[in-house]
C-alpha cells in the first residue's frame, strides 16, 4: 500500500479530481529553494522532497519574519532525517495544498513564539519517519534486515558488507512504503544539526536583495493600489468625489470600499498621488471625539468598578492587607503602540480567468489568510492559493488581523483577470494598526513584620485583544488571559493574591504586539522593586526569597545575577536593575546597567539576559532574538506611543514615532540555559524583563520611580 503520495502524483490526482490547480506561479521563498522541486524530486513525506542528487527540500509551515524559524524547523527535520545539512534548502508549504491534504502540516500560525515549540514534535517525527523509510528501502533492495543498516549524512550503509546507497537513490522506493507506526526520536544530547549554530538558510539571499517580500511581488500585467482608510476607527466612506484623480497619469480605477477608498494605477507612486487628489467625506461614526483623556477615563472607570471578574484568587487578600505591617500601593500605565513593521501591510490578489484566486502576502498565518480570502471572495478554499512571502517584520501585526487580505481582494475584484498589488503607505500603516493595548494597573501589596510579601492585590484595566481577534478564547467571565498575564501566573510565593480584570475596549483596535501582555511584566517587576525597597532588602535577594529552591525562575535569576556581578561594585555612576519574567514557554531574567546624566541622558552600558527555553535549536538565532527583543523593547521604553485625537491616531511616520538607531543599541550578553524537559520560545520572552530592568536601574541611579512609559515624558532619553 502506498500512503505517501509524491508531489507530482498529488498534483496529477488533484487535476484528475477536477481542480484547475496549477503551481505555475509559486514564488521562491529564497531564489534557489524551489528549483526543480516538483519535477525531479520525490516527496518522501509531506515535509520533504529528496532529489536524485541528494538535495533535500524541507517544507516549512510557519512563516519567516526574521525570527529564524525557517532554519530552525529545517534543522529539526534534518536532524532526525540524518541527511547532509549542506544539501538542505527550504520552501514554504502551500496553504491550498494544506487544506486539500486535511491540514497535513499542522498549524501555520506564527505567533506566541510557537514556531518551533509547538511543532517540534511532529516535524522531528517526520524526519525520523522518512529516515526509517529510506533505510527500509535500501535494506529491501539489498535483501537484508533494516536493523543491519545505518543512515548518516544522506548515505545508508549495510554494516556487515559495507555496501552503500545514497538517499537520492532510494527516495522513490521509500516514498512507496508504509510509514512506520512507532517513530522513536533522538535524545537531544545526541544532536549534531539541531542545537548547533548553523548558518541561517535565508541570509545569503537576503544580503543580495533576492528574497521576494510581499511588497516585492511582480506579475505580468500587474497593477498597483494605494489605499486611504477612514481615519476614525469604525467609520465609513460617506462620499467620494474622484475629482481629477481619474484623469491622472496611469490611473485605471478608483475603488470605493465600505471603510476605505483606493486608487489602482500602473505604478504605486501614481496610485498614491491620485489618492491624494480624491475628495473623500467620511462618516466618522460615533468616535470622532475620542482623545487620550477619553481613553484614560474609560480605563479609570474600569479600575474603580465594583464586581470585577477575578483572574486569580488565593487566600484572602483584603484581610491580609488589613493585617499587614506595611502596605505599599502604586499605579502604573502605558500607551497604545503600533507594530510598525518596516514593510507596510501589503497583499497582491489575482482573480484568474479560470475562476481561481491567487493571493501573495506577508502573513504570519497562511491558514488565516486562506480563510480571510474565502470570506472576502466568496470562493471555496480549494479555489484559492495563498503564496506566503517573506515578511518584512511581523511582531503580531500579520497573524490575527487579515485586513490587508480582505482589502486586497475587494480591490482586485474590481479588475477581474488583472493582478493588483495593494501596498499601504507608512502613514496608513501607522494609523490603522492593531495596537498594543493602553492600560492602567493598580497594585497594592502587604509586607509582614519581617518584610516578607504576604498579600498582592492587582486591578488591571486594559482593552481585550481576544475580544477583537479571538473572542472564543475569552473565559466565561470575560477574562482575557493576555491582559492579566504576569499577575495571574505570578511565580512568587505569596499566600494571599487577587487579580481583578476590567475589560474596557473602546474603539481603538488592539492586537497581539510582540509578547502580548508584556506591559504587565513592566508593572509587576517595577512594583516588586518598590516592595524590596520598602522591605529594606536587595532586589535580587527579595525575589529569591519568594521563589522555591530548584525553581526555574529562581535558577535564571541567580544565573543572571552571577553573570552581571550583582552586588559587586560598579564603575562610578553606573547602577544596576533586575527583573524576572516568564512567558511563551520560557523563563527569563535580566540585569541592566545604566548611568544617567544631568540632562536625563540614559546610557545603557550593558544588558545581561538569561533564558531557559528547555531546548535550543539554533543558539546563534536565539541570541539574535534576544538582541531583537532588547531593541524592540527599547523603542517602547523611551519613545513609542500612539496618541488619540479626534478619534484618530496622531502619529504618522518615523519622524514622530521613533525607532532607536544603532547609536542607542546597548551591548547584550545572552545566557542560554536550556534545562531540558520542556520546549519554550525565543521570539518574545526576552522583551518581558527589558522595561522593568531598565526602569529599576534608572531608579537605582536617580531615586525616581518611573510608573509610566515612554520615558521621554520623564525627561529621559538614550545617551
Amino acid at each position: 500500500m502506498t500512503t505517501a503520495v509524491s508531489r507530482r502524483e498529488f498534483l496529477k490526482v488533484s487535476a484528475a479530481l477536477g481542480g484547475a490547480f496549477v503551481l505555475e506561479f509559486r514564488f521562491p521563498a529564497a531564489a534557489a529553494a524551489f528549483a526543480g522541486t516538483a519535477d525531479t524530486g520525490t516527496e518522501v513525506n509531506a515535509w520533504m522532497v529528496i532529489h536524485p542528487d541528494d538535495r533535500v527540500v524541507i517544507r516549512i509551515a510557519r512563516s519567516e519574519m526574521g525570527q529564524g524559524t525557517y532554519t530552525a524547523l529545517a534543522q529539526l527535520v534534518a536532524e532526525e532525517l540524518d541527511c547532509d545539512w549542506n544539501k538542505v534548502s527550504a520552501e514554504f508549504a502551500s496553504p491550498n495544498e494544506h487544506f486539500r491534504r486535511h491540514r497535513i502540516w499542522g498549524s501555520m500560525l506564527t505567533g506566541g513564539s510557537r514556531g518551533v515549540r509547538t511543532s517540534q514534535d511532529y516535524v522531528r517525527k517526520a524526519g525520523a519517519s522518512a529516515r526509517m523509510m529510506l533505510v527500509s528501502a535500501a535494506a529491501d533492495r539489498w535483501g537484508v534486515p533494516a536493523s543491519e543498516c545505518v543512515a548518516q549524512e544522506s548515505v545508508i550503509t549495510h554494516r556487515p558488507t559495507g555496501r552503500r546507497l545514497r538517499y537520492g537513490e532510494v527516495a522513490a522506493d521509500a516514498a512507496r512504503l508504509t510509514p512506520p507506526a512507532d517513530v522513536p526520536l533522538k535524545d537531544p544530547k545526541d544532536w549534531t544539526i539541531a542545537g548547533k549554530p548553523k548558518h541561517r538558510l535565508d541570509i545569503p539571499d537576503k544580503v543580495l536583495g533576492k528574497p521576494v517580500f510581499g511588497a516585492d511581488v511582480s506579475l505580468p500585467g500587474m497593477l498597483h493600489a494605494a489605499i486611504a482608510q477612514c481615519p476614525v476607527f469604525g467609520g465609513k466612506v460617506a462620499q467620494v468625489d474622484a475629482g481629477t484623480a481619474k484623469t491622472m497619469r496611469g490611473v485605471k480605477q478608483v475603488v470605493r470600499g465600505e471603510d476605505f477608498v483606493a486608487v489602482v494605477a500602473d505604478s504605486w507612486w501614481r496610485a498614491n498621488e491620485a489618492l491624494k487628489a480624491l475628495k473623500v467625506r467620511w462618516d466618522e461614526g460615533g468616535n470622532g471625539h475620542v482623545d487620550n483623556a477619553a481613553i484614560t477615563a474609560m480605563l479609570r472607570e474600569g479600575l474603580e468598578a465594583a464586581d470585577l471578574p477575578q483572574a486569580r484568587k488565593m487566600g484572602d487578600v483584603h484581610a491580609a492587607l488589613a493585617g499587614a505591617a506595611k502596605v505599599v500601593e502604586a499605579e502604573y500605565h502605558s500607551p497604545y503602540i503600533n507594530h510598525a513593521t518596516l514593510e507596510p501591510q501589503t497583499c497582491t490578489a489575482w482573480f484568474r480567468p479560470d475562476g481561481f484566486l491567487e493571493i501573495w502576502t506577508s502573513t504570519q498565518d497562511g491558514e488565516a489568510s486562506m480563510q480571510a480570502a474565502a470570506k472576502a471572495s466568496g470562493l471555496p478554499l480549494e479555489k484559492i492559493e495563498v503564496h506566503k512571502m517573506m515578511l518584512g517584520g511581523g511582531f503580531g501585526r500579520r497573524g490575527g488581523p487579515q485586513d490587508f487580505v480582505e482589502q486586497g481582494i475587494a480591490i482586485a475584484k474590481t479588475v477581474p483577470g488583472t493582478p493588483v498589488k495593494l501596498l499601504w503607505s507608512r502613514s496608513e500603516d501607522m494609523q490603522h494598526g492593531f495596537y498594543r493595548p493602553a492600560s492602567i494597573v493598580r497594585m497594592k501589596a502587604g509586607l509582614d513584620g519581617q518584610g516578607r510579601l504576604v498579600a498582592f492585590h492587582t486591578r488591571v484595566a486594559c482593552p481585550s485583544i481576544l475580544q477583537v481577534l479571538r473572542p472564543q478564547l475569552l473565559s466565561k467571565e470575560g477574562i482575557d488571559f493576555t491582559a492579566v498575564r504576569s499577575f495571574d501566573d505570578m511565580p512568587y510565593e505569596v499566600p494571599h493574591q487577587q487579580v481583578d480584570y476590567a475589560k474596557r475596549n473602546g474603539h481603538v483596535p488592539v492586537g497581539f504586539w510582540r509578547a502580548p501582555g508584556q506591559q504587565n511584566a513592566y508593572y509587576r517587576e517595577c512594583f516588586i522593586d518598590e516592595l524590596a525597597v520598602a522591605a529594606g532588602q536587595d532586589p535580587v535577594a527579595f525575589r529569591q526569597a519568594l521563589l522555591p529552591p530548584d525553581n526555574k525562575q529562581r535558577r535564571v535569576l541567580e544565573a543572571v545575577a552571577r553573570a552581571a556581578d550583582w552586588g559587586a561594585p560598579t564603575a562610578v555612576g553606573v547602577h544596576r536593575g533586575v527583573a524576572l519574567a516568564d512567558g511563551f514557554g520560557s523563563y527569563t531574567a535580566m540585569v541592566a546597567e545604566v548611568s544617567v546624566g544631568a540632562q536625563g541622558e540614559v546610557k545603557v552600558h550593558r544588558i545581561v539576559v538569561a533564558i531557559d527555553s528547555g531546548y535550543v535549536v539554533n543558539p546563534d538565532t536565539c541570541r539574535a532574538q534576544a538582541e531583537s527583543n532588547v531593541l524592540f523593547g527599547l523603542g517602547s521604553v523611551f519613545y513609542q506611543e500612539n496618541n488619540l485625537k479626534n478619534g484618530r491616531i496622531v502619529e504618522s511616520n518615523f519622524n514622530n514615532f521613533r525607532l532607536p538607531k544603532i547609536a542607542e543599541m546597548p551591548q547584550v550578553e545572552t545566557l542560554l540555559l536550556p534545562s531540558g524537559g520542556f520546549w519554550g520560545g525565543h521570539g518574545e520572552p526576552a522583551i518581558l524583563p527589558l522595561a522593568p530592568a531598565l526602569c529599576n536601574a534608572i531608579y537605582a541611579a536617580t531615586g525616581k520611580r518611573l510608573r509610566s512609559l515612554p520615558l521621554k515624558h520623564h525627561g529621559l532619553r538614550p545617551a
Partner: protein
Amino acid sequence: MLKLIVNGDTHEVDVEPDMPLLWVLRDHLGLPGTKYGCGISECGACTVHLDGEAVRSCTLPVSAAVGRRVTTIEGLSKGGLHPVQKAWIEHEVPQCGYCQTGMIMTAVSFLERNPHPTDDQIDQAMTNLCRCGTYTRVRKAIHALADAAAGRKS
C-alpha cells in the same frame, strides 16, 4: 523620456520627472531589492548609490538621477559578493532582511570613505532604521571589515 544609468545599464523611462527614484526602480525597472519603508527619508530602506554616494531614493526625484550612475543592491557586486555582503553573511546580520539592502548600501559607501571607523563614526553614519534589532551585528561586521582591511595593509 529620461535616460538613467542603473547598475551599468542605460534605460529610457517614460515617467514624471518628480517621481521618486525609488518607484522608478521598483515599479518601472523591476528592481525590488530597494525597499519602501517611510517615504520621508527617515528609515533608509531605500538607500542606493548615486555616483558612489549613498542617497535615500524615496525622496529623490528621478530627474536628479539623470546622467549620474545609480547603483542598487542588485548591481552592487555583479557575479559575486561584495566584501560587505560577505561580512553580513559571516556575522549572520539580517533577521527579516527588509532594511538590510539599504543598510548594506549605506555601509558600503561609508566604508569606502572611512575604512577604519570608530564606534562614534559608525553611530553618526549608520542611521538606517532596523525594527528587528540587527544593530549589534551590523557594528560587529563593520569592525571586522575594518580589521580585515587593516590586515591587508600591514
